[in-house]
């Protein structure tokens, strides 16, 4: 047993319980998968092991000794390394410079020739090549990851933790990564593999531990569990009874045809998505974050350009309309980040008019502040926002900020509302309120596109569900045709 974590509990200062009495262990030379949804606690658990954060209670035993690491460098010296989703490489420097930089912190004054020698050794042992002189940012993501792994190997670790390593890779790169991991395993290195993808768990891990909502569901030998069983454990049983009334769909109000959208890196994040939306329906888009939802939402809102495809509202092609014009056409967007949807340093009244400025202008583009104030007052009242009109919005609690954001868009009575992660990070009361608000909106005959990683929410609110995976819709259909396990599989990339 290389690693033992016993009874790990982590409670944050604001009361959120991230982990509850979790046990975890991994032996030498094994590849151990850590499976769970967003927010299950996988990354938190590993950050405790790695020494980045401290547990509230519980102990960590490494190589037979109880340890309490003071920080990442401490654990590194003991032989634990972590490869994050967001690599810690300086993008504008070359690979060899990055390796040199890293090693210089471990051994001051190390010469670059020595670094090169060790790098060559690693590449030879693992049978891959990384162009050492190239700048990190010019390399394909898969190659960058290999560089990051090389960096980590320079400190000769006994344990390597990989956090969702395949989320940014192509299938071929994934194959290559797995080959490398198997070679590392042969050298006796233990690998902890954090993921939400079931297929990969089955393919590469020896054992797998499943976490759900901060608790450990179980640990199994991988060959002994099926993907279906894993899916159920990952998302849990029990569907919250739907408070939805029966759907009464009206005419088609929006149509999206073969949409292709690029992300900030220039790669295709949305690959040929098509769907229609009717009056009085909520269409849910489920999926793990990072599969194209953000780009899709921004493209629909008009904030991001579309490479190919069309967006049509009530027969009008709005594909080339900019955001402000689309908002006037009756489309509204609630982004997943409050720092984007609100201007935190402005006050409540100023925020109330952000996406409907034209409605508050008098002659000569003059802002009619009394009108804005009364709108703000309406929002506060209808949506129970607790906060002063004149205070900066950043001083409001997260729940109140979200109510403000949601309220501002709904009060405009748009025809189509696109909302992303409406209840992320909110307490129960705020969550319930916002969900029932959305349902009421639907009853009025409006349409909503709901993007969420919270499957309870998807089932509770949506009439139809689509799952997005790597930029494509996998499986779209009526709510009744889905089960939790089917959703889990689709979200993990398995056709079901």
């Amino acid at each position, binding site marked *: 047993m290389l690693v033992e974590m016993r009874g790990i509990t982590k409670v944050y200062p604001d009361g959120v319980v991230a982990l509850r009495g979790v046990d975890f262990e991994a032996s030498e030379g094994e590849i151990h998968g850590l499976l769970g949804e967003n927010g299950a606690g996988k990354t938190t658990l590993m950050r405790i092991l790695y020494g980045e954060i401290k547990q509230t209670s519980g102990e960590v035993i490494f190589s037979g000794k109880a340890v309490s690491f003071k920080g990442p460098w401490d654990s590194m010296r003991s032989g634990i390394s972590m490869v994050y989703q967001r690599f*810690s490489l300086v993008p504008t*420097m070359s690979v060899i410079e990055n390796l040199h930089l890293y090693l210089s912190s471990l051994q001051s004054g190390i010469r670059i020739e020595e670094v090169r020698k060790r790098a060559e050794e690693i590449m030879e042992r693992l049978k891959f090549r990384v162009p050492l002189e190239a700048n990190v940012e010019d390399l394909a993501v898969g190659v960058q990851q290999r560089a990051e792994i090389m960096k980590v190997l320079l400190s000769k670790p006994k344990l390597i933790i990989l956090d969702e390593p395949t989320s940014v890779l192509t299938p071929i790169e994934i194959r290559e990564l797995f080959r490398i991991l198997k070679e590392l395993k042969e050298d006796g290195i233990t690998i902890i593999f954090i993921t939400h993808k079931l297929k990969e768990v089955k393919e590469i891990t020896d054992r797998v531990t499943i976490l759900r909502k901060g608790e450990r569901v179980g640990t199994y030998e991988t060959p002994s569990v099926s993907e279906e069983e894993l899916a159920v454990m990952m998302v849990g049983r029990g569907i919250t009874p739907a408070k939805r009334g029966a759907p009464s769909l009206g005419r088609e109000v929006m149509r999206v045809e073969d949409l292709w959208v690029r992300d900030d890196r220039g790669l295709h994040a949305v690959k040929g998505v098509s769907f229609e939306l009717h009056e009085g329906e909520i269409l849910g888009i489920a999926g793990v974050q990072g599969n194209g939802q953000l780009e899709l939402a921004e493209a629909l809102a008009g904030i991001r350009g579309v490479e190919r495809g069309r967006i049509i509202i009530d027969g009008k092609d709005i594909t080339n309309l900019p955001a402000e014009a689309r908002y006037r056409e009756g489309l509204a967007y609630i982004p997943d980040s409050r720092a984007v949807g609100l201007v935190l340093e402005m006050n409540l009244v100023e925020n109330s008019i952000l996406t409907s400025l034209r409605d508050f202008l008098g002659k000569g583009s003059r802002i009619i502040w009394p009108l804005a104030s009364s709108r703000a007052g309406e929002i506060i009242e209808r949506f129970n926002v607790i906060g002063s009109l004149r205070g900066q919005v950043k001083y409001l609690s997260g729940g109140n900020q979200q109510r403000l954001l949601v309220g501002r868009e709904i009060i405009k009575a748009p025809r189509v509302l696109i909302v992303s992660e409406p209840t992320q990070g909110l307490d129960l009361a705020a969550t319930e309120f916002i969900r029932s608000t959305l349902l009421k909106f639907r009853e009025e005959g409006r349409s909503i596109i709901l993007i969420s990683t919270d499957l309870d929410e998807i089932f509770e609110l949506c009439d139809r569900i689509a799952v997005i995976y790597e930029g494509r819709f996998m499986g779209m259909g009526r709510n009744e045709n889905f089960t939790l396990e089917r959703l889990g599989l689709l979200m993990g990339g398995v056709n079901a």
Partner: protein
Amino acid sequence: MIEDIVSLTSQALVAMIPLLLASVGEIVTERSGVVNIGLEGILILSAFISSLVTFSTNDPYLGLLAGALSGLSAGLLHGFISVYLRGDQIIAGVGFNTFAYGISILGLINTWGHHGASPMVSKVPFFGAPLYISPLLPVAFMIAIICWFWLFRTSSGLRLRACGEDPRAAEAMGVNVLRMRLLATIIGATLTGIGGAYIVVGWIGQFTRHISAGRGFIALAIVALSGWNPALAIAGSFIFGFFDAISLYLPVKIQLINPGLNLTSLSYIFRIIPYLGVLIIVSFFFRRGRAPRDLGRPYIKE
């Protein structure tokens, strides 16, 4: 004709020294991610202090040392505000320029009672006629080369550059970003301080009201044009030193040819040359994206 070029070149070699020292210093500072707009103020302040010290001790080398020390203190102030207080680097620099100007003139008038200039002070001697070379020239050259070597060929220079490119990644790789940035700011300001002292003890021989005349900003332009490379800054400083020399030389020459012209007013028009040169060269030759990625942004640890 030849003697014109020779004298212009020797003049340029003198004028380039403060530019070279200041720009190399600022390259080090900016490579770590901090921008110090207050170079102009440092030049003025160190010029004043070194003139004061040289006047009282009659030793120009002490004057140089005093200049270095004033630069160091300025660097400490700016570094503290920019790095630890996470203040706005550009505003702090602009404020410092105004402050340094005020304090220096105040000191000038208070010490010598004169509004325009200090009395002459002893200078560092030149050697090597006909091309009069100041001993500080090879020193400045060496400093530029050493800085180049340090930044690009040593691991500590690598760590410094990482702070300016991606401080988060640098921190994750074990670099103490805040400390490194403060150090880089101090080094840059100290070199600039030496440059300011040099203008008095190695060149003009006295402290005057307009002693720096925008050289601090020309140094900033040289930093950008050299692509943040100390070796290229040598070329840049020489070019602008040459512009400086021409702007002083041409009006005299033209007046010799045409004695009816007023020298003072003529010299004004030629004084534009260095600034116009910077503007044109910078507007046309500056390539985006060569700057350290994180330049000017305060680093806030998670």
